[in-house]
């Protein structure tokens, strides 16, 4: 039975163009100077930065429309600085990054120095039954989560490494804060800013308010903190079993 290409495959085919070798070479040189420490010289990942050859954004990028924005704006929430580069320089980076992604399968087993990736097939060593037991028992996950509630279909929303990273620490989970003024009045909202000196929230109507921390009492509710409490308690077996269990929740 033949299967027509998925949309991802279609996009990949559409952008699998060939780039002029000298443009790719220029891109490789610039990539080494600016990008390779974090992303590896071959773009498969270096110190701290992700493997671009597996990147969804790169796969869906058409002629640099998405890549250029990331390069110019950086990813402040993830620690990537912005790079003010000319259009020509960006075009060379785009050519190099696409070539690396197109050739990614050719790198398996060959030494290229950069960090290598993790496939969903690497993350199948656990036992789903044991994972369910951990979820309902020692892990305490069912205190906040339900396989038929918030986690229904989680395995369709996240796969492989991304699922495991979210499972260990859901970095996009929002925190709430309750601020009590000197008058006794309380205001709650989504935590928008917090340092030693200032606390800021977005209220239910969408307005931003902030106060000096010295002037108010405040209590932060970070549901993700329960995940942090588990780190010293997990065995690696627990993690693999939990992954096996979560991957049954389609």
């Amino acid at each position: 039975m033949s299967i027509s290409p998925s949309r991802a495959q279609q996009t990949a085919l559409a952008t699998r163009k060939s780039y002029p070798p000298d443009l790719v070479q220029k891109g490789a040189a610039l990539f080494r100077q600016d990008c390779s420490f974090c992303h590896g010289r071959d773009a498969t990942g270096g110190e701290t930065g992700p493997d671009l050859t597996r990147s969804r954004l790169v796969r869906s990028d058409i002629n640099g429309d998405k890549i250029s924005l990331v390069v110019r704006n950086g990813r402040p929430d993830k620690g990537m600085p912005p790079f003010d580069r000319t259009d020509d320089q960006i075009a060379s980076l785009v050519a190099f990054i696409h070539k690396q992604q197109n050739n990614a399968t050719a790198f398996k087993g060959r030494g290229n120095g950069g960090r290598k990736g993790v496939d969903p097939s690497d993350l199948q060593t656990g036992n789903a039954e044991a994972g369910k037991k951990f979820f309902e028992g020692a892990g305490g996950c069912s205190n906040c989560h339900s396989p038929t509630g918030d986690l229904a279909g989680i395995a369709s929303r996240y796969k492989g490494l991304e699922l495991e990273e979210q499972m260990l620490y859901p970095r996009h989970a929002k925190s709430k804060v309750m601020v009590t003024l000197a008058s006794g009045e309380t205001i709650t909202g989504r935590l928008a800013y917090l340092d030693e000196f200032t606390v800021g929230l977005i209220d239910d109507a969408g307005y931003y308010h902030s106060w000096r921390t010295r002037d108010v009492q405040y209590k932060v509710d970070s549901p993700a903190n329960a995940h942090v409490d588990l780190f010293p308690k997990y065995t690696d077996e627990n993690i693999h079993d939990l992954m096996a269990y979560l991957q049954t929740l389609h």
Partner: protein
Amino acid sequence: MSFITRIFLTASIAFLAFAPDLARAQGATPQMLLHPPADSWPIYHGDYSGRRHSSLQQITPRNVKNLSLAWAFQTHQQSEIKSSPLLVDGILYFTVPENIWAVDARSGHQIWHYIHPRSPGEHIGHRGVAMYDEYLFFVTPDAHLVSLNAKDGTVRWNVQVADVTKGYWTSMAPLVVGDHVLVGVSGDFDNLTGFLRSIDPETGATQWQWNSTPSAGTPNQTTGGMTWMTGTYDPDLNLVYWGTGNPTPVLNGSTRPGDDLYTCSIVALNPDTGKLAWAFSVSPHDTHDWDAVETPVLVDGDFHGQPKKMLMQTSRNGYFFVLDRTNGKSLLTIPYGPVNWSLGVDKQGHPIPNPEKEPAPDGRLIAPDEGGLTNYRSPSFDPKNGLFIVDAHPSWSIYFAKPADGLYGWAGADYDVWGKAVLEAIDYQTGKLRWTHELGPWGSGAGVLTTDSGLTFTGDAMENFLALDSTDGKTLWHAGSGSEIVSSPITYELDGRQFVVTSSGGVLFAWALPE
């Protein structure tokens, strides 16, 4: 001799007698490097000990709340300042990759700006210049050492230290010891031999080279051990102390069984010959990229009632080490944050790596993360309080390695899961935390400077400069800087005024009490 000539001669002699300094600035003399005067910061660490501790007392816990901006210098470019400026003869010298600025410390204005031609090699960061006499020494992304005239930034010579096409690059601030300029190298993405090179400050010729690891391809032996950061020096023992980086391949140790000497080590070398006096392995058989290149801080003091010449390091791998620096013997090895990768510490003070926590095909949860429990931002030793104060990063990560990842360079993958920043004041005799100061989520704080008046200067993860009380870590002053703080503070006295100089993003800030 005519009357006019006699007048001229008398006037000239009088002029020279009262204004000798105008003829020639003194530069960084050996005397200045050994005993930095109050109006100087002539070495990356401030002095050879690496304590980053100042005897200046004008700014105190009582008056620091009045600390205000004397001037800011904006570089108008995107690279973040990671260097510690030097201050010599009233002029500050600081860097980002391929750039040196010379700034008048009184006016905050530029004297000259050197821009090195764009070179291959990683432009990830730069730690600063070194000074010898009237010359500056500056490493480049393509692993060259450039020497410049401090008065105007003109180039004297340029020599290759390592081959960038093989994967080396350089970013560190060299260390001048006697008539040696000591230069270290970077490069983890290739299986390379690490080394420390001693270079003649006059000619650029190589004097000696010490290799931390064997040549690539030696059977069952490691490569790596890069000398990423600046070491320290004991003039009485005539030993330089240097940390070395992790082995390569990084996450896969199968081709390099054993302790992988001298990677992840603290070594003591004779600066005149490069001969190894002793070595201590901080992370035997590391598989987590945890360099041991953090400042090897030299402290003379009591250890459990005995006077000792010590060396202290808060290392990437999560352990705080106190060594006897005369012989490299361990006095104390203790974690200073969450650590889950070891089976404990052996009798010689080495952490014992747990084979179950080596990177695996299905991943292992590891504390700390790859960046380590601390990273390049400098710690400080406060002798008055007996505290080793460090920007710590309690953190967790997952590490992967499988045969398909190969045996070259990184040879695996690791991902940060969670972390935060906290300043820790460690009692050096016990490793206990006397106080901590939370610095914010995810990232890291800044480097640390302490002073004899009882102040700790640093920065948090939310772009705030901080001055803390060294006895309890309470905040006494702060200023929002507007950008990431990724450097370590310095301080000096100029015209009878104490300045603290910090940086954030591409801007240098000079702080002082109002005049």
